């Protein structure tokens, strides 16, 4: 093993992102899908931070804060939607929710 470069972080980020993306595509439970989205977002955050460290540029770390704020907001809205759905239906499987079909 050589010296720790930011490439390791990038590869890790890519792996985590892929896991998240595949999870999003294959799982049907909205809560799990949310967690997968969080995985993808955090993989990106990891990439940002890794590059900021490697390139010595504070900009990447700043971007991470924005992503975290957006992720928090997204979760709030998304969970609220899930709760609203649960009040009207027995379960919340994403494939059952296709009322907006064209």
């Amino acid at each position, binding site marked *: 093993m050589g010296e720790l470069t930011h490439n390791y972080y990038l590869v890790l980020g890519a792996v985590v992102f892929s896991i998240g993306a595949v999870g999003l595509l294959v799982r049907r439970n909205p809560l799990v899908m949310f967690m997968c989205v969080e995985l993808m977002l955090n993989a990106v955050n990891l990439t940002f931070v890794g590059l900021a460290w490697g390139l010595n540029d504070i900009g990447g770390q700043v971007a991470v804060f924005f992503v975290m704020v957006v992720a928090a907001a997204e979760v709030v809205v998304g969970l609220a939607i899930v709760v609203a759905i649960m009040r009207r239906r027995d379960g919340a499987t*994403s494939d059952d929710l296709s009322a907006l*079909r064209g």
Partner: protein
Amino acid sequence: MIDFVYLVPLLPLLGFTTLVLFGHRLGESAAGWLATAAIGGSFLSAVLTFFGLRSLEGEERVVTKTLFEWVPVGDFSVDVAFLVDPLSVAMILFVTGIGTLIHLYSIGYMHGDENYSKFFLYLNLFTFSMLMLVLGNNLLLTFLGWEGVGACSYFLISFWFTDEANASAGKKAFVTNRVGDWGFMVATFLAFATVGSIDYLTLNGTASQMSTPVVTGIVLLLFVGAMGKSAQFPLYLWLPDAMAGPTPVSALIHAATMVTSGVYLLTRVNGLLYEVTERAGWATNLIAWVGVGTALFAATIAVAQNDIKKVLAYSTVSQLGYMILAVGVGAYVAAIFHMVMHAFFKALLFLGSGSVIHGMDNDQDMRRYGGLQKLMPITAGTFIIGWLAIAGVPPFAGFWSKDEILLGAWDSGGLNGKALWLVGLITALLTAFYMSRQVFMTFFGRYRYNDPDASEVDEAWSAYLADAEATSVSASAAAAETAQAHTDAIAAHAEASEAFSTAKIDAATVSGDDEESAKKAIEAADRALTSSAEAEVETKESSEAASAAATTASVALGDAQAAESARSGPALGEPDDAGEAASFLPEAVAARAEHHPHESPWHMTAPLVVLAGLSIVGGILNLPFTKGLHFLEQWLEPALAHEHVVNASAATKWILAFVAIAAGAVGILVAAQTYLQHRRDPALVERPILADAWGYDRVVSAFMGGPGTKLFDAIAWFDATIIDGMVNGVATTVRDGGSVVRRLQSGFVRSYALGISLGSVALLVWFFVRTAA
């Protein structure tokens, strides 16, 4: 003070909207006075605008007043803007001035009509449209007014639409005008496509840079528009029929204002016309010939019309021909001069004819008029002034303007100019003739209103003959009957005499008791014989009397037939001979005798007096004697960059003027000999082919009703199938495409996510391929 120009179209518009909203509640005379006040105010504003413009110096007198930007499209823009220059101000002055007089007149004329306020609403809308037409600084705004006056003309021609003839006259005017409008529109498109601008100042200013085909095309297409509105051959057809409308409409729209808009339009683009004259002289020459040809053509028709308004209608077509001639030879001042003078005297003549019709119980047939100058002195006096003006008698208005046009034609050069002048001169002679005919038939001679018509006389004669024949037939039937009775009586007598002889013979052969009864039988037979002899004598007498009566009746029938075949048509100026048939005349004749023509109320005569005054002194506007007296020419100069300069010497001018006066005098004299002194048979000039308008109208109607319909059906099919097909095709394609594409929206969130993923991958691949390459 030029800002008063905004009020000029605004006031009629306000009058219109007020009448639309509250017309019914205003009641009869209030609606009329409101409309009149609106136009009157507009006239005052026009006068103020005139003074405002006059206070400017020469070349500054072309002002554009922009109201707002109407159609901004990229570099191209059309404003709602008024071009205030001497030409448009001259037009708005006479449009609103004459409009006011005619509105005032209509208050009296339309009295008692059930759609009184609607009439004034249309008149106001018409005036507004006409003012937009005149004031518009570009072709599109003028077109707005152009269509507005066309629509109002349609509404007003068929104002009494319950009568089929009026409704179809309105449609005819509308459809014929569309043909002209096509020319106007294509001219606008052409100007937009080639010059990129449609305002008059730009068009006139850049005329010299346009290519010859373009400038000629624009001018000729605008001329097609002018042919429609200004009723030139071959599109004049609608104007004579337009007389179906109320008379003030005929005066305002179809004589004084709207029909001059074609002439105005051509004068407005005089810069283009000048270029065409310079480069493609045949085109302006064509305009001149169409004008003068229409003038002559319509004048020949006018001499044979019997309807008082038809004569004036054809006269209007003819006078418009003069104006178009003037435009064609480049004498724009003369065209505008004649337009204004014509507006004075033709409005006067139309309103006068309306006054006559009003007094004559809505009868428009001049053959029933006569001697009205005693009964309607004001109408007659003013009408006579109008007649002198149009007939070209100096010093009345028409003489000066017509003379200017003829001079312009003469001076336009070469044999062509002389030929134009000659045709114009012949038209002037005919004009004097038919107008004199009208005046003599209407106001002079014997009062003919209660004379029976030829048809009524024919009817009376046939009733009379039928009666004589019936008498004769019944008399001879009675004679035959009595003769039969006589024959029967002779037979009865013979029988009785036989019976008597038999009785005598019987008596001789019997005896005793039978003798007594035989005697009685003989007595009875004797009595029967005597009475049958008496009956024979009696029936013989009655039979003789009946046959004498039958002979008398048949002689009377023969006399009646002889008298019927001996009667002649009406002698000149004499009523048709009803003679012995007089007692069989229809009751309508007696009813007419009860009618007494009367002078019209003051609302109607006051405008006549004002217009008569203008028709007398109107010529002052542009007297030919010295340059200093050319007021109209000096005034119009800034608007007409290329007025034709007359080169003719003073001597030529004097000679031409005297020739024109002589032609007018000949026309009047011939008419006087024919219709006043009855020295000539009117049938010599009133040819059936002239009364039929040379058959042109009939031929066009036959074509449009027959083969033309098929052509237009084909065009309608093309429109419905091909044009609409293309439009509908676009809509169908979009709809069908949408119904395919919408299936993509499945509602499954994860399939959207898959789409996004695949899209991102595709983008990545694309980036890599691009950077690698």
